């Protein structure tokens, strides 16, 4: 027992001995790296302070900090380069016979030697960055004592989080470098392999996804790559991608707050979980790479010191991935002879590398065979992806049991401009059900029958030109669904669908407890104001009052000021209303107005009570609405008998919206297909992107029977939840709907008959129908 313990202690001791001696060897690199790092983040921190100072002084045209920014950027690039240099120096003995002898004969086992060398290099590489970060933080803190930094200092915590993303990137770069060094056979091969592995991993993932999207574009989009943890967590380039996405999706919403723009609380909540998922996945990947590297190192023999590529398989994997990328990229160009060109280019690169690797033409026929095999494998993989509809990805939807959150983004008819991320099982089920139906409509078209319109998409003239007989409206909504699985994957699907298909999911989202909670918080925080300060404050302790923007159905807004307590009470009432409201109640309720982008309707009992108690007008009469219309600048038209149509090709052929479409037939072929006649539409927002006739200053509208028009305005609503629409009322750019309810057809006719267009100068009257 004692002997065993002593032996164990000795072994541990040798690791630390090796670590210390290796770190002592690395000391010069460590100091060099510290110099780079001190010239990097602390200088950037100094620049931030200086720029803030200039902004405070309103000296916007000063560019004093540019030379320092250049120095800091160069230092940053050089410090990144240390990710190649440090491992090359630390493991250089693998390529030198004498050094192998000296290192391998020391009383160390492979594990002690590898992990000591790896750790000392890692510390040499990462610790200076940490020091740089800490110094930058100190610079910022000291700077904030001298310069009013405003909101910048609120984000120290976020900066620290971003700093850790950068650390992950550095560790990944260093680890991949050690991995490449371990399978290479010489310094040149190691440098080539480090660069190749760092580029090939993200490129391979991206290219493979490109091939899948190309083979099965139904619902798949290349943006999946930008939501793909595999892409983010497997290479420094991927980490850079995550870093940019993080700044864009996470950091930017924070800065919006300061400028008074919409603060998207749902995205904020999600990025928290994405961040930790990223950190954990990256660390797992790093651990896997370290384990593989150690196995390679352990089985690498001392006598392999002069061998070209000790583990040739990795060399051939890199080269095959290069051929795969070249062939795919050339395929993307859609040039007919692209494949031949790709093979020629790949062949040249392959054989040049083989000559270098073999140090000549020794047994060169094997290089020809290996290239032929690699090319065949690459073409085979691409073919398999094509023949299997992108490996079946287009049909794949995760089980609801596997999904933790779903992100829904709808363009055009949604409840907000931003994506919402929810984890309510009902919403997840809705998304999966909708997705399943869309997929079924594509892959099992026989299950569905459609009533076709006589409208042709290629006939552009008929689209928006209204006639007495029939008015066509192309009803296409875009929906993106991102399923975040419990395992941390993000599965992205994007489709074009008729708006009516979104009714159920949208109404369920709108009446979802989590959505209501986040949305009302968002409205509340965005309403917070401070006296005499144009900047909004997230922190309610800084706020003096709340400012809510009420908008009616004609988009006329009115600011209502409440105390912070009242503001909170109102948003709480809205939250309770929507939490209690069923989707059916939401569908059947009468629209009153918007607060922010949330609808106040007849089912919002508590909110309405609050507004009544505080004398806040939330519903306008027809007469009040009519008074808001400037008939000299806004046309008022009623277009009955609309036919909403959806191109059938979006179900039958192609259904994705990105530009990654090198195999897509021409637009002409797509747009000559049939259109489906739709029974109903769905809309929650005020705008629907209609074009409208602008009369300039020559004509204006007059109403012969104002009662009829007022009645029409009272009945018109921007909110349609899967109902048949009898007519659209266009007031300027605002589109309101008259749904198919009793008496509405008569009301439409009365209103239409009372609308006249009158020449401003002559007083001559025109029939508005002429302009439909």
């Amino acid at each position, binding site marked *: 027992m004692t002997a065993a313990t002593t*032996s164990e202690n*000795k072994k541990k001791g040798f690791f630390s*001995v090796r670590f*210390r001696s290796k770190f002592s060897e690395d000391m010069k690199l460590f100091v060099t790296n510290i110099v780079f790092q001190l010239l990097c983040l602390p200088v950037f921190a100094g620049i931030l302070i200086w720029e803030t100072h200039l902004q405070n002084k309103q000296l916007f045209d000063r560019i004093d900090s540019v030379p320092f920014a250049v120095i800091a950027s160069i230092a940053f690039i050089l410090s990144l380069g240390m990710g190649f240099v440090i491992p090359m120096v630390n493991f250089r003995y693998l390529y030198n016979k004498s050094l*192998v002898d000296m290192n*391998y*004969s020391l*009383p160390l086992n492979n594990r002690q030697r590898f992990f000591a060398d790896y750790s000392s290099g890692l510390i040499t590489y990462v610790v200076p960055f940490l020091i740089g970060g800490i110094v930058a933080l100190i610079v910022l803190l000291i700077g904030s004592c001298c310069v009013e930094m405003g909101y910048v200092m609120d984000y120290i915590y976020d900066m620290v989080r971003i700093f850790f993303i950068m650390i992950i990137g550095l560790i990944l770069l260093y680890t991949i470098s050690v991995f490449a060094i371990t399978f290479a056979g010489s310094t040149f091969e190691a440098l080539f392999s480090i660069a190749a592995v760092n580029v090939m991993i993200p490129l391979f993932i991206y290219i493979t996804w490109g091939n899948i999207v190309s083979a099965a574009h139904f619902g798949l989009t290349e943006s999946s790559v930008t939501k793909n943890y595999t892409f983010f967590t497997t290479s420094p380039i991927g980490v850079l991608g995550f870093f940019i996405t993080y700044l864009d999706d996470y950091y930017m919403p924070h800065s919006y707050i300061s400028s008074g723009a919409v603060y998207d609380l749902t995205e904020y909540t999600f990025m928290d979980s994405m961040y930790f998922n990223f950190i954990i996945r990256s660390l797992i990947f790093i651990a896997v790479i370290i384990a593989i590297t150690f196995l390679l190192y352990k089985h690498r*023999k001392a006598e392999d010191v002069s061998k070209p590529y000790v583990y040739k398989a990795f060399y051939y994997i890199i080269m095959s991935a290069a051929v795969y990328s070249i062939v795919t990229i050339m395929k993307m160009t859609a040039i007919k002879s692209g494949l031949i060109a790709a093979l020629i280019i790949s062949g040249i690169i392959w054989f040049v590398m083989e000559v270098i690797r073999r140090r000549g033409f020794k047994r060169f026929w094997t290089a020809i065979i290996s290239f032929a095999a690699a090319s065949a494998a690459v073409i085979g993989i691409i073919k398999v992806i094509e023949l299997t509809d992108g490996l079946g990805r287009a049909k794949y939807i995760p089980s609801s049991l596997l999904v933790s959150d779903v992100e829904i983004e709808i363009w055009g008819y949604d409840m907000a401009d931003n994506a919402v991320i929810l984890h309510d099982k009902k919403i997840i089920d809705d998304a999966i059900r909708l997705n399943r139906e869309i997929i079924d409509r594509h892959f099992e078209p026989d299950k569905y029958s459609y009533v076709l319109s006589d409208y042709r998409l290629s006939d552009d003239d008929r689209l928006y030109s209204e006639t007495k007989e029939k008015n066509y409206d192309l009803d296409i909504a875009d929906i993106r669904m991102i399923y975040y699985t419990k395992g941390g994957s993000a599965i992205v699907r994007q489709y074009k669908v008729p708006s009516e298909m979104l009714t159920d999911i949208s109404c369920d989202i709108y009446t979802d407890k989590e959505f209501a909670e986040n949305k009302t918080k968002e409205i509340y925080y965005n309403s917070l104001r401070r006296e005499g300060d144009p900047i909004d404050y997230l922190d309610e302790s800084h706020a003096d009052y709340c400012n809510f923007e009420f908008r009616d159905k004609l988009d006329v807004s009115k600011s209502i000021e409440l105390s912070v307590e009242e503001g909170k009470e109102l948003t709480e009432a809205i939250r309770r209303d929507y939490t209690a409201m069923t989707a059916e109640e939401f569908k059947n309720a009468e629209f009153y107005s918007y607060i922010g982008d949330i609808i106040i309707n007849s089912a919002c009992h508590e909110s309405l009570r609050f507004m009544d108690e505080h004398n806040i007008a939330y519903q306008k009469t027809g007469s009040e609405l009519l008074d808001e219309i400037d008939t000299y600048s806004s046309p008022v038209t009623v277009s009955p008998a609309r036919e909403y149509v959806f191109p059938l090709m979006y179900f039958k052929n192609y259904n994705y919206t990105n530009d990654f479409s090198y195999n897509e037939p021409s637009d002409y072929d797509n747009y000559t297909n049939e259109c489906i006649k739709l029974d109903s539409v769905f809309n929650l927002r005020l705008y629907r992107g209609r074009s409208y006739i602008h009369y300039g200053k020559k004509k204006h509208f007059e109403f012969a029977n104002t009662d009829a028009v007022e009645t029409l305005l009272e009945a018109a609503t921007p909110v349609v939840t899967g109902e048949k629409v009898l007519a659209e009322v266009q007031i300027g750019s605002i589109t309101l709907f008259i749904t198919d309810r009793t008496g509405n057809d008569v009301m439409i006719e009365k209103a239409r008959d009372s609308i006249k267009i009158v020449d401003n100068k002559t007083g001559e009257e025109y029939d508005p129908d002429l302009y439909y």
Partner: protein
Amino acid sequence: MIELKNTVKNFDSYTALDGVSLKIDKGTAFGLLGSNGAGKSTILRLISGIYSPESGEVLIDGEKVFDNTDAKQKVFFINDETVQFGAFTLKKLKNYYKNYYTNFSDEIFETLLKKTGLPLDKKINTFSKGMKRQAIVIIGLACRTDYLLLDEAFDGLDPTMRIIVKKMLVDAMLDRKLTTIISSHNLKEINEVCDTAALIHNGKIVFCRDIDDVKGSVHKIQVVFNKNEDGSVPSYTKEDFAQEGIEILHYEQSQSICFIIAKGDIDAIKASLLTKRPMLTEVIPLTLEEIFIYELEVLGYDSSDNIGE
């Protein structure tokens, strides 16, 4: 004790060691002899745990040496290249090795340093080849390992320094029963330092014996034959003597005088020669180098043939 049991070591398709078995007792000064590429350095690298054998075992005091820190603690290997830590000073190099070898003796280091007169604070890449060799030898000795392996130990040393290094080795062997394994082409030095030697050829052990035994078992005999009755000189071939039971390594006849290099008991060889009624038989002492050359000649490694090519 160091043991190699049926050790095979391949470098791709080339077999460097082909079933080598060897035992080196503690306190032995062991010389490894062999032609270039015979496998001497491979044996040293196997013993020092740098290489792992394909089959067979390499044991130090009964423990497998590869990847075994305890076994490697007992061995210090000095390879045929000069020391690699050029940017280190000797002091730093000493501290480097001192951390790894727990028995490191500063006292021995200081003593040997005085003997060699090497500068302690100069960078090693300013040293000459011989100085570098001295530096690593004194560190190797100061590490006080049980086994010291020297590949081409005396390369680059001037004659005086050779004597000093040899003396250092011999002192260590006498003081603490250091086992030294020396591979060298300089057989004179092996002869001077080692008590046991092994000859390796094409990855196999040709012999492994006490050097005195080696010398005693191979003899160079000068024989002068009487002329025949018709006045002619008798002509013999190698086979004529082989029939007499003499193991001939080399045979050379010029007129009535011939030189025989033979293996075996000298008295038995002399007795066998008597059947040829020699006028004179004289045993001439052989150097280790000559034994090396004649042994390898038998195995087809003939210098005269190679030169002829």
